[in-house]
């Protein structure tokens, strides 16, 4: 409870949390919120490229679809992709990090060298290459992002496990004859969970940005998806006249990522007071 209180005193973190909750709610109830459910996929070609108005607060796109509605529905895709990618990365990355951190031997050495190799190339570039090999589409983009993001989890979990491993109570458990699996899952995992949560929160924001970039480059979502990145790519032909076409999906990305970053920073300060805010 003390932790919650401390977090609530951190204004940027609370702001981040408010943004996250809002975006999640918008995504869940997207189809009830959209002012124009038909306008998401079927536009009226006669009202194409209309500037923002009362009827279309964010304007309309090149096919006359309502951009506000598409931005709202697009939040579902963005969050689903990020959740999927982070979840898969956690499933791969955490066990490897726990094992490599707890054991010391060629197995753990091999895992850590593997993360070195993956981290030797910027994630986006590796993800682009993997996505291309897997064939186009949203699923392969997600898989590509997850296959290139897990090393970040492994690194975090490895470092934390190494730290916890030397603690006296672990030694005591070993002395009592507790099994390796039991020590790792019941005693080490809860102690490294905080760092995992921080990494996952920051990873959500990061993945939304990377996934939007893939969508923009034409490797993730495919038309007529209301994906934010894809929408911005589609808008380029109609600039600068139809500025609203590109502006609002970009603001949606900015706001969502900002929410995760602010909240993630706040969490990190709580978990590790050495890394105080301000950075």
């Amino acid at each position: 409870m003390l932790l919650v209180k401390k977090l609530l005193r951190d204004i940027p973190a609370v702001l981040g949390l408010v943004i996250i909750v809002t975006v999640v709610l918008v995504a869940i109830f997207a189809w009830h919120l959209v002012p124009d459910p038909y306008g998401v996929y079927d536009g009226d070609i006669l009202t194409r490229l209309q500037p923002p108005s009362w009827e279309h607060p964010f304007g309309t796109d090149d096919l006359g679809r309502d951009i506000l509605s598409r931005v709202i529905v697009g939040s579902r895709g963005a969050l689903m992709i990020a959740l999927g990618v982070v979840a898969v990365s956690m499933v791969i990355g955490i066990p490897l990090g726990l094992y490599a951190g707890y054991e010391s031997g060629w197995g753990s050495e091999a895992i850590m060298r593997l993360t070195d190799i993956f981290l030797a190339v910027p994630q986006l570039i590796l993800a682009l290459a993997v996505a291309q090999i897997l064939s186009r589409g949203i699923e392969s983009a997600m898989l590509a992002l997850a296959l290139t993001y897990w090393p970040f989890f492994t690194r975090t979990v490895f470092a934390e496990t190494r730290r916890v491993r030397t603690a006296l109570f672990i030694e005591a458990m070993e002395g009592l004859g507790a099994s390796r699996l039991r020590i790792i899952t019941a005693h080490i995992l809860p102690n490294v969970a905080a760092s995992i949560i921080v990494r996952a929160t920051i990873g959500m924001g990061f993945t939304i940005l990377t996934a939007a970039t893939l969508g923009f480059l034409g490797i993730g979502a495919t038309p007529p998806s209301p994906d934010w990145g894809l929408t911005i790519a589609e808008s380029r032909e109609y600039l600068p006249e139809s500025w609203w076409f590109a502006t609002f999906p970009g603001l949606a990305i900015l706001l969502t990522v900002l929410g995760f970053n602010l909240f993630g920073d706040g969490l990190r300060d709580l978990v590790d007071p050495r890394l105080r805010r301000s950075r």
Partner: protein
Amino acid sequence: MWRFVLRRILLMIPVLFGLLLLTFTMLQLIPTDPAAALAGDNATVEQIEAIREQFGYNDPVVVQFWTYLKQVSHGDFGVSVYSMRPIGADIAQRLPATIELTFVALILAGVGGIVIGTLAAVWHNSAFDHIVRVLSVAGLAVAAFWFAIMLQVLFAMDLNWLPLRGRLAVGIAGPPHVTGFYLIDSLIAGDFGLFWQSLRYLTLPAVTLSLGGLATIARFTRSAIVETMQRDFVAYEQAVGFPKWRIVLPYVLRNSLVTPITQIGLLFGSMISGAVVVESIFDWPGLGSYLVQVIFAADYRAILAVTLVIGVIYALVNIAVDLVHTWVDPRVSEHM
């Protein structure tokens, strides 16, 4: 010092070998037949088989990996299906443009970030400080491709101050090739008009690319300086009556720059991935836009060659950063 450098370079070798193994494995996983792609649409089965034999696609995998290693170590990445030229030549031709762009962006981010961060720390808790803190968080949440487009709309399309895309206007030849960097080559040629033009074309992409780095470095510099300002030697100097700037500039800054400089190294990775996006938006003829082009052409060999080259550059930059790091703070090398 030199032992430290040598150690870093030796440590790089297994990582690069692993990266080669990774790219090679990915080449093997490609769904399409590379021989068929090379032969073209109208090739007969015999022609495809001949190409397969010629390029060694029928050899055992281990032999193929050995051949791949040998070729790559000579800079021979095969022929691009996209440009029909040797991939190595394509990369060599495009690399200077990317390095020029990234380097300028890195300088913008480094110098700008350190100056802004220092000012924010010196005017701790002022309005300026608060604005810097908000912008430094927001700067990391902005999608680079969106920021690039917004800059294009504002400065190139609406205000018409800066060119929209390209490295120079269409039809204008670059300066005589010396280094491949237009900014330097045009100065060597003594052509200041061309230098000015290159700079104008470089501005928007470089600013876009520097945004994330600028935000990160400003943030780290600010917090490092705020922390250093609380140390005893600063209190002493203040008590003796040194003016604030005489304390901050030589003493506090040197004691605070270690983290920001480490960050610059880490940023290089995000700059390279940023370059992929920024270059394709601004039609900058570098490695990043090449990567996007070969991805759309499904030119796997070129994709993996670019990935590999970027990995090598990335590793070299990290070594360079460590060197600067030890130079700024000699305590570091003892730990490594």
